[in-house]
């Protein structure tokens, strides 16, 4: 990544959509860039931190990130803000008034939808925000377009004094493709101009701006009609004409090379005139858009007949293997199988869900939580969401970032008579706590909730690949930053000091005792663990363990930890003295994957787990 700026421009490089956008942002003379990490958007800011002459930051959440970008724009500088789709929900409050103030320095908001849910809790369509906030929206179809569109987006942003939404999907952000890049054009800040009617959105001033917003939308519609980002690819087979945007465009080109197609890169406001003209040139129109039928509905509302979600799914991607049979049905042809396929049906293979890493500090937490009887556990967003999986099955509800806090309070206040004895737990990570969890904790203490909170500080944003946050003592550049003290924050938010405990998550008996005690006390308590994620540099590997097969009694105690380094090598059915049948599980430890955390030692009844003689170990941490 550090090599990006070293390549002499203009040059052709293999770049992911995120890398291409970072390059475009830097070349556009952006001065301020902000984001909160989130798959698939994370790498935009990570890459920007490698470029000179701009300020980039990890913000504590997406709302703050957008507000930072707004401030920089008001200051007259070009600014950039990136987030995943659910992040824009968090930032929506800022967005919906930002559309009234508009932008001074060019402002581009890159929002990445996770179409196909590779790593998200929902699959929403961020193109709604263009319509909801009356903002222009652009959708690239690959890395080159993403790179090119950044420059266009800044030009549009400044011409119309409006923030521009650059809508991406996982299939743009994480696809690497060839990109021809250019040179940076510095863009000096115009300076702050005091103008309360423009920037202070009291009802009186906002009222005037609403009319201007609608005027601007019509001007943008005219611009979209003329934009070269909306173009027609000619084709001879006029039986079906396609309208597509985003990655669906590439899939249409792949599936129907001979067909006429209208590409919408500047897709909102939709260029209805261009669409109408295109529709006249084809027999039937098929709108190929991922997720919601937004273009389809607008096209139909304009009185233009078209097909769309009557033939195509509203969920997931629209690759050629989905498009071809749908169009065959439209044309009344026999749906093509995949004639060249060697094996028609996918093989039945066990699922391989992502799981916690070997030696992960969360393993002991979920092992313990699963052994506390009579609980309801509200979880949160991060690696520790994996605690809902096998073998822990330790989470009962997960919704969005920070929600564990409020949900736990609601579970407490709303409990039925039959749930009176239940212990309510909330599990949240360090970065998520600062993102949106702190307010929830304040609500718990303020309203005297009876909730036990597990604050799992693994000193990084783990799930997105190990980003820094205010708890790590480092910023986006990896340079020292003030480090948050979680104990002090919890105290300041109203948790009594006696009810805040720091516990080593690898000390199972201590952890169990702390959880037992705190869940029995009817007031808010916080148990903080602070051992590092095994994927970050701070993690120190210990000598690996192995199972002595002569001593293993098959008790299965170590297997229950859920460590991926531990596996069952043999099962045996035996009759217990009581006459009941039991299954013995004889275990082994994959020494190369064992980090030596020692979690499996105490559940091992026969003490069969011993230090392995030094063997070569796989190092998880990227060098």
């Amino acid at each position, binding site marked *: 990544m550090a090599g990006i700026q070293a390549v002499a421009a203009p040059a052709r490089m293999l770049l992911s959509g995120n890398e291409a956008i970072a390059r475009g942002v830097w070349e556009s003379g952006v001065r301020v860039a902000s984001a909160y990490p989130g798959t698939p958007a994370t790498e935009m800011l990570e890459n920007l931190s490698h470029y000179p002459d701009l300020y980039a930051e990890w913000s504590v959440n997406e709302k703050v990130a957008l507000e930072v970008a707004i401030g920089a724009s008001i200051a007259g500088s070009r600014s950039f803000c990136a987030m995943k789709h659910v992040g824009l929900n968090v930032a929506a409050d800022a967005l919906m008034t930002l559309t009234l103030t508009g932008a001074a320095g060019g402002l581009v908001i890159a929002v990445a939808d996770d179409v196909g849910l590779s790593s998200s809790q929902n699959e929403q369509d961020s193109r709604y925000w263009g319509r909801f906030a009356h903002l222009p929206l652009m959708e690239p179809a690959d890395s080159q377009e993403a790179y090119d569109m950044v420059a266009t987006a800044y030009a549009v942003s400044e011409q119309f004094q409006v923030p521009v939404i650059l809508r991406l999907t996982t299939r743009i952000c994480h696809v690497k493709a060839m990109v021809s890049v250019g040179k940076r054009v510095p863009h000096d800040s115009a300076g702050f101009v005091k103008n309360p009617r423009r920037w202070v959105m009291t009802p009186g001033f906002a009222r005037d701006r609403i009319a201007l917003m609608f005027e601007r939308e019509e001007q943008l519609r005219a611009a979209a009609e003329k934009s070269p980002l909306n173009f027609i690819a000619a084709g001879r087979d006029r039986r079906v004409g396609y309208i597509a945007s985003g990655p669906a465009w590439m899939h249409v080109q792949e599936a129907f090379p001979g067909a006429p197609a209208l590409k919408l890169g500047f897709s909102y406001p939709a260029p209805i005139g261009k669409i109408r003209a295109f529709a006249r040139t084809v027999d039937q129109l098929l709108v190929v858009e991922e997720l919601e039928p937004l273009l389809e509905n607008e096209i139909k509302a304009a009185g233009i007949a078209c097909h769309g979600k009557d033939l195509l799914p509203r969920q997931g991607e629209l690759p050629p293997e989905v498009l071809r049979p749908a169009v065959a049905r439209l044309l009344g042809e026999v749906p093509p199988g995949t004639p060249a396929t060697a094996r028609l049906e996918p*093989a039945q293979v066990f699922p391989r869900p992502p799981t916690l890493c070997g030696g992960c500090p969360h393993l002991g937490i979920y092992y313990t939580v699963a052994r506390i009887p009579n609980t309801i556990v509200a979880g949160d967003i991060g690696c520790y969401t994996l605690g809902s999986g096998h073998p822990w099955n330790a989470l009962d509800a997960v919704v969005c970032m920070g929600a564990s806090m409020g949900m736990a309070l609601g579970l407490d206040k709303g409990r039925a008579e039959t749930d009176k004895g239940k212990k309510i737990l909330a599990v949240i990570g360090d970065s998520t706590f600062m993102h949106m969890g702190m307010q929830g904790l304040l609500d718990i203490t303020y309203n005297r909730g009876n909730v036990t909170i597990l604050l799992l500080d693994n000193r990084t944003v783990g799930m997105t690949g190990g980003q820094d946050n205010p708890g790590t003592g480092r910023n986006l550049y990896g340079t020292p930053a003030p480090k948050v003290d979680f104990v002090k924050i919890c105290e300041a938010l109203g948790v009594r000091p006696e009810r805040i405990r720091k516990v080593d998550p690898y000390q199972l008996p201590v952890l169990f005792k702390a959880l037992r005690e705190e869940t029995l006390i009817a007031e808010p308590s916080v148990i903080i663990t602070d051992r590092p994620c095994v994927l970050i540099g701070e993690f120190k590997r210990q000598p690996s363990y192995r199972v002595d097969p002569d001593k293993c009694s098959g008790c299965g105690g170590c297997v229950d930890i859920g460590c991926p380094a531990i596996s*069952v090598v043999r099962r045996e059915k035996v009759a217990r003295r009581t006459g009941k049948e039991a299954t013995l599980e004889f275990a082994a430890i994959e020494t190369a994957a064992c980090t030596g955390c020692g979690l499996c030692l105490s559940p091992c009844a026969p003490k069969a787990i011993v230090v392995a003689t030094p063997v070569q170990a796989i190092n998880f941490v990227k060098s």
Partner: protein
Amino acid sequence: MSNVTNILVAGVGGQGVMTATEILAEAAISLGHDVKKTEVAGMSQRGGVVTSHLRFGLKVLSPKIAPGEADIIVGFESAEALRWSHYLKQGGIVLMNTARLEPPVVSGGLYSYPCDPAAQIRASCIEVIAFDAMAIAKQLGDLRLGNSVMLGAIADYLPFPAEVLLESILGRFKARKPEMVELNRRAFTAGRDTIANLVPAEA
């Protein structure tokens, strides 16, 4: 698009699937091909399934390989090779590591691991070349060499000379870890030789 070569690399998070595909991509780029590379790896380092699609040729449109269109499937793990085998086109080839990585749901007894994934793929009349890449890497003294062993194994099945791929591997190490250049050359050669010796025996 018939002028496009489709290579699907499949494995488990942490095995180096994405790096291997990146190296293949670099080799294709060095020959002037248009290249697109995409992966489905939401939580790639968490032991989940990872597939990386590499497409190169004159002009690549969709970055995704459709089922039934892969020229080569490179399986870094046995069951993963089987899981994605329906992506292979007729006349394509599966090159796979015989290593078996059992996830906790298998080890915990919830699901069973297929007895012989390579045989199961072969049963669909697919050409399969299976070998133990990890054993070779271990012999050379470093499990991380498995990646170069795998790349060596497929080197003679690519539409360009094996040396181009080797150069692209070594180029990486020359820049970052020059002390690893020789070891990786040996790993690549070992993988390549193993396959060369395997194939006549099977034919």
